[in-house]
């Protein structure tokens, strides 16, 4: 396959970026999108040029590191896949592919296609956990969990935190990510004890990071590689109202 790549290049967060155009003549249709970038980078190294920086780790579609905005879609047009699981056979010979980094104020570009997604880490640190005291584990059957609750929690837990929802949203809102974490933990008995603090603190941290607001366009759930549903956002809204208006528990600012 012959491919023309237009890739965003940026030396540092402060400097202005630009698009560089590369022509690749020997691309195997069975390559993944990232393998295609490996070929490009090998070529650049041999020419003595700086290779294109991009995030990747497991290349199995489960770590959430890869993050390319391909031809106007996060992780490309293929639904339910991350960039590493997108294969070149989904493109046509002679295609021009435009690759950009995630665009959001809270996700500044570090270099080329690599963005800083640490706001997600800080949101998790604000409440996306369950406090467990050490000691011997109790019998698993002593805590009853409804199958429907366990399924819903598991569906939400499959969020890999890649940030495609933010990249896809016209408002750069992180609500799909935050709501998946809240739903994942607050559905289960182990997470219910901290649900009030979790909802208030995670939403507050999300707002402090400067993400936009959800307008229910539904773009996030279409682009999510893990199929996280927008209903999690509606559940988060209800969870937040409950924490603020109903609960007597006070969460310090």
């Amino acid at each position, binding site marked *: 396959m012959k491919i023309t790549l237009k890739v*965003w290049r940026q030396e540092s967060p402060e400097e202005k970026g630009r*698009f560089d155009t590369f022509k690749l003549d020997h691309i195997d249709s069975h390559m993944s999108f990232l393998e295609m970038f490996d070929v490009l980078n090998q070529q650049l190294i041999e020419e003595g040029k700086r290779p294109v920086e991009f995030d990747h780790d497991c290349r199995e579609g489960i770590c959430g590191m890869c993050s390319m*905005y391909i*031809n*106007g*879609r996060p992780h490309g*047009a293929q639904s339910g896949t991350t960039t590493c699981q997108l294969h070149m056979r989904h493109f046509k010979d002679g295609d021009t592919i*435009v690759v*950009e980094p995630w*665009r*959001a*104020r*809270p996700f500044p570009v570090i270099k080329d296609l690599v963005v800083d997604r640490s706001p997600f880490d800080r949101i998790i640190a604000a409440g996306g956990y369950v406090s467990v005291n050490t000691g011997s584990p109790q019998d698993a059957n002593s805590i009853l969990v409804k199958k429907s609750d366990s399924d819903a929690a598991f569906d939400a837990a499959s969020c890999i935190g890649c940030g495609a929802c933010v990249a*896809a949203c*016209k*408002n*750069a*809102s992180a*609500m799909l990510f935050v709501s998946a974490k809240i739903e994942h933990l607050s559905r289960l008995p182990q997470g219910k004890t901290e649900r009030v603090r979790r909802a*208030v603190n995670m*939403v*507050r941290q*999300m*707002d402090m990071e*400067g*993400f*936009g*607001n*959800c*307008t*229910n*366009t*539904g*773009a996030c759930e*279409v*682009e999510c590689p893990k199929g996280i549903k*927008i*209903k999690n*956002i*509606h*559940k*988060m*809204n*209800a*969870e*937040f*109202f409950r924490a*603020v*208006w109903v609960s007597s528990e*006070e*969460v310090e*600012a």
Partner: protein
Amino acid sequence: MSWLKGFFNSSIGRKFIMALTGLFLILFLTEHMIANLLLILPDNGVIYNQYSHFMVTFPLIRVVEILLFASIIFHIIYALVLTYRNRQARPVKYAVRKPGENSSWVSRNMGFLGLILFIFLAIHLAGFFAKARITHDLGMVTINGVEMHDVYSLVKAKFEIWWFDLIYIIGFIALGAHLWHGFYSSFRTLGLRHPKYLPLFKGIGIFISVIIPLGFAVVPIYFLINSLS
């Protein structure tokens, strides 16, 4: 009361205001649309003028009117604040965008539709509300011994102008599109996620976004056709 301040300054709290004010405005629109249908009764406006007189003299309606204007103002202010913050959240735009592949045009253009509705509202209030309530620049009529504003004749005169009707039709189309996304979206913002009721509200949203603009459009079209024949 820091919790209350925190709520109204939060992203979800601001959306909550948008949803609540929006739903109240839909309630008003429903009443307004049904009442407008009194205009097409073949009684030369007797019932409509009596209705209008009741609306400006009944004290409870005065209170609701304040609530209505407050809702409009808050809906606009919060829309501006949210839109500003949403724009701020993406300072560098994408070079290639394909938004049509993951969301509907209406859901992405609520602000634009809102702007059209704002312009329409200004024209509408200047044409009717200001004349009837502020400048009192309209004729009088006596029905059953009570002297009252002849709102009916004002409406009739205005809607016999074809370009005035056109402005209204454009306004109603924008309204339908705004409600198409707005009604359903507001319930989701308010936290409704029940798998049995959510599809029901989606259906109601589609129904009202068609029936309210259609009901409104009947009146100008009726007066225009009558003036032609």
